[in-house]
């Protein structure tokens, strides 16, 4: 494999040149982590389909490309008008802009936050060797594959959000990740760190969008620390270009009584892989995972989730729904792990997929690994097509075929969309769903 991977070659060899461009960041304590990650990259390399976790997702086409690091290309020219276009309409939120992995303060629109709240670029925090980055950055997650290593070694920036104990950020924070370029084939490596203190609350919308016509590769990692009794909502709306590769890892560490909800809305990208992992490391924690994946044309969308119940009396709910059209391919791999001590765990997982075309396909692998006896765990997976009887019923009421199909699609995804807590976002998601599937909106 390594012989064919130009990406691996470029980035295992190009570290010295990268260090020179780092502009002082190589003096920081985080730089040691980068060096370790570089070694890991050479050791782990990029996964192949022989790796059980990548069985259904072949990245050989992706790693053949030698995407350029953003430090080596002309800065992409973005203005406020474009931001206005790219932001999700009608959603009242603060705006953070990240262009090819670099935080752009000028274009960001932030409120005045109460004392102690930090909404900043991660690079700033790394540069200042802030206590928080030293404590949490790259500590919550492990490097599991070459992509994680690549991000850790070569990422320079991203967003940093810190909500101290007993504080709340009222407005949702919308982070617009703009990736790609019209000049070069680029790799975008945003690295985000979200820390929610005790009794704090924050809601984040991560909006991934594409820029330019060239192929590009977004490889992002988000680490979330959810303190005791905190409430964290993370909405991921992925609207990359159709020529994008998108690999995302989100790692969440939850403390006592916290509630973390992840909404994974996957629309764009040619090859998409999401890894969402949670560790429930104390009692009385709730974890919610909601997901929608909509495939059209030749898209390949792979969602991996892992809920680790390490302590007793916790609950996790997972609901993933997919609609696959044309020649698109879906992969779902959900794992619930219940450790020996995690008695009285309630863990539920459900994955439902509808195939709209003959060429669409889905591979699903819901897994339970349970070492405690006093638990209630279940998973369910269904795969099917639009209900013929329901369709006939609607049609017999004089509804056109297009509308009838749209109605059934809307009904199918309803229970995921309804979980979204921001009303306007719900509306916008509805638009995106029908637009992406090229169907009549209802």
């Amino acid at each position, binding site marked *: 494999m390594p012989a064919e991977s130009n990406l691996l070659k470029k980035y295992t060899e190009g570290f010295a040149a990268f260090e020179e461009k780092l502009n002082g960041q190589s003096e920081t304590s985080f730089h040691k982590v980068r060096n370790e990650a570089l070694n890991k990259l050479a050791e782990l390399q990029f996964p192949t389909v022989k790796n059980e976790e990548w069985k259904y997702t072949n990245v050989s086409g992706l790693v053949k490309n030698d995407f350029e690091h953003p430090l080596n290309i002309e800065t992409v020219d973005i203005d406020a008008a474009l931001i206005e276009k790219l932001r999700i309409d009608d959603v009242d939120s603060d705006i953070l802009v990240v262009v090819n992995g670099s935080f752009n303060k000028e274009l960001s629109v932030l409120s005045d936050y109460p004392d102690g709240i930090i909404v900043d670029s991660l690079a700033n925090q790394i540069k200042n060797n802030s206590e928080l980055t030293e404590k949490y950055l790259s500590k919550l997650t492990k490097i599991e594959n070459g992509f994680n290593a690549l991000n850790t070694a070569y990422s320079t920036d991203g967003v940093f959000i810190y909500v101290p104990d007993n504080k709340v950020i009222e407005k949702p924070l919308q982070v617009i990740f703009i990736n790609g370029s019209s000049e070069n084939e680029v790799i975008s490596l945003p690295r985000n760190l979200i820390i929610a203190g005790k009794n704090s609350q924050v809601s984040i919308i991560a909006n991934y969008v594409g820029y330019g016509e060239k192929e590009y590769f977004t490889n992002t990692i988000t680490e979330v620390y959810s303190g005791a009794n905190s409430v964290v909502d993370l909405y991921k709306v992925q609207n990359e270009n159709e020529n994008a590769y998108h690999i995302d890892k989100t790692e969440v560490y939850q403390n006592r009584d916290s509630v973390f909800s992840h909404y994974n809305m996957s629309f764009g990208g040619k090859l998409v892989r999401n890894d969402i992992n949670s560790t429930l490391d104390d009692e009385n924690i709730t974890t919610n995972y909601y997901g929608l994946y909509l495939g059209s044309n030749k898209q390949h969308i792979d969602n991996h989730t892992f809920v680790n119940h390490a302590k007793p009396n916790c609950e996790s709910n997972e609901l993933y729904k997919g609609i696959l059209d044309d020649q698109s391919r879906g992969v779902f791999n959900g794992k619930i792990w219940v450790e020996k001590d995690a008695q009285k765990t309630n863990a539920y997982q459900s994955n439902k997929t509808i195939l709209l075309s003959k060429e669409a396909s889905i*591979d699903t692998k*819901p897994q339970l*690994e349970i070492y405690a006896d006093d638990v209630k*765990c279940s998973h369910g997976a*269904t795969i099917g097509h639009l209900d013929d009887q329901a369709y006939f019923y609607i049609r017999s009421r004089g509804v056109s075929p297009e509308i009838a199909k749209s109605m059934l699609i809307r009904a199918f995804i309803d229970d995921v969309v309804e979980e979204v807590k921001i009303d306007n976002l719900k509306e916008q998601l509805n638009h995106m769903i029908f637009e992406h599937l090229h169907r009549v909106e209802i």
Partner: protein
Amino acid sequence: MAEVRAEDFGSEEQAKAVEDLTTSEYKWGWETEIEQDTFPKGLNEDVVRGISRKKNEPEWMLEWRLKAYRHWLTMEEPKWPKVKYPEIDYQAYSYYSAPKEKPELESLDEVDPELLKTFEKLGIPLEEQKKLAGVAVDAVFDSVSVTTTFKETLAEKGIIFCSISEALQEHPELVKKYIGSVVPYTDNYFATLNSAVFSDGSFVYIPKGVRCPMELSTYFRINAMDTGQFERTLIIADEGSYVSYLEGCTAPMRDTNQLHAAVVELVTLDNAEIKYSTVQNWYPGDSEGKGGIYNFVTKRGACRGVNSKISWTQVETGSAVTWKYPGCILQGDNSVGEFYSVAVTNNHQQADTGTKMIHIGKNTKSTIISKGISAGRSDNSYRGLVKIGKKADNSRNFSQCDSMLMGSNCGAHTFPYIEVDNESAMVEHEATTSKVGEDQIFYLNQRGISTEDAVNMIVNGFCKEVFNELPMEFAVEAQKLLAISLEGSVG
């Protein structure tokens, strides 16, 4: 099944129940002293040739065995199952052992009385078999078929039911046509090993339009010290035929681990049906997990014809390590595959079992019902694959995998793989994991039923869907086995 919050009461009795379950002794442990003609330990090409010569096999069979052996040398033992066991030294086994007097008997009187006693202990009174309606027994004592009953009755219908070595002598064309056609010699590590060194097994051929008038049954019994068993079973149901086949096993107590790598191949042609039931109760090792059987089995059926059907039912209570995925390849249009399984693990037992349903033909249907019960320090995994091919229009699958945990030192795992390439398919998978409901026990206690009986009833209820699928003769034994496994408390 109902899921409930645990309360404090009752848990002590339950703990005791689990304890009793884990300490119940293996009933069927002893060894028969019979002279054995055994090969020295070790495996090489000469051993493969030796086995073939012993059995006076045709040349092509030997060639096939050698091809398998050479391929096996290039393979690696699979490490992906969720089981742990000490490294197997394949040179430490003897690959052939047969009772010395291979009798060609007309009546049971001529059978070695020692053997008859063994069968009696096993609960197969051969002298009563003929009176017992409906069951013909091809008893495999270690590796060679010793006696076959009811052959004449079956022969009248044109049914062939004999050992595979006999079939190689008398019906080589049938064996040649079908052997390795469902499980090729390159299939997997253990199946390949089996292909090279298989000693004996059963062969069944049901001719066109014949409904086998009785349930066919083979009892396997591992007997000689340190002899791996490599059975090979081949069942062919020709157009419009039906057969129900029973397989059951017990093994004597011993200290060194025993390897068992069987291969079972089923073929159904147009409108034919095979029902294959297994009760497996090999020695699981002592309560420390020492000395049990390694059960690495490859079972697969091919529904070649239209409207054909293959149904697997298994009750797995024995073996130290079980690694077994009976599967169905649904090639013919409208063909049906079924898998019903109860797997009980206890002490240090490990089971990684499940099924594969490969839908290729149109309108194919499959059902999977799997019940796992783990107790003691055991690990019990369901691992299954449902694959709907591109051309399998309107195919349908329903899977249900339920696990029950008894005690906090065991594990229950579910690893289903679902791959769908056809939009008209409907696939459903459900899995739950829970413990014996304490409110259920409380409810039964209230009605004057002891905790022991209550747990028994609940576990039986949990497995009922599978037991219902077993043929009458077998259902009794299966329930007995479960009762032994769960004796004193949990069943």
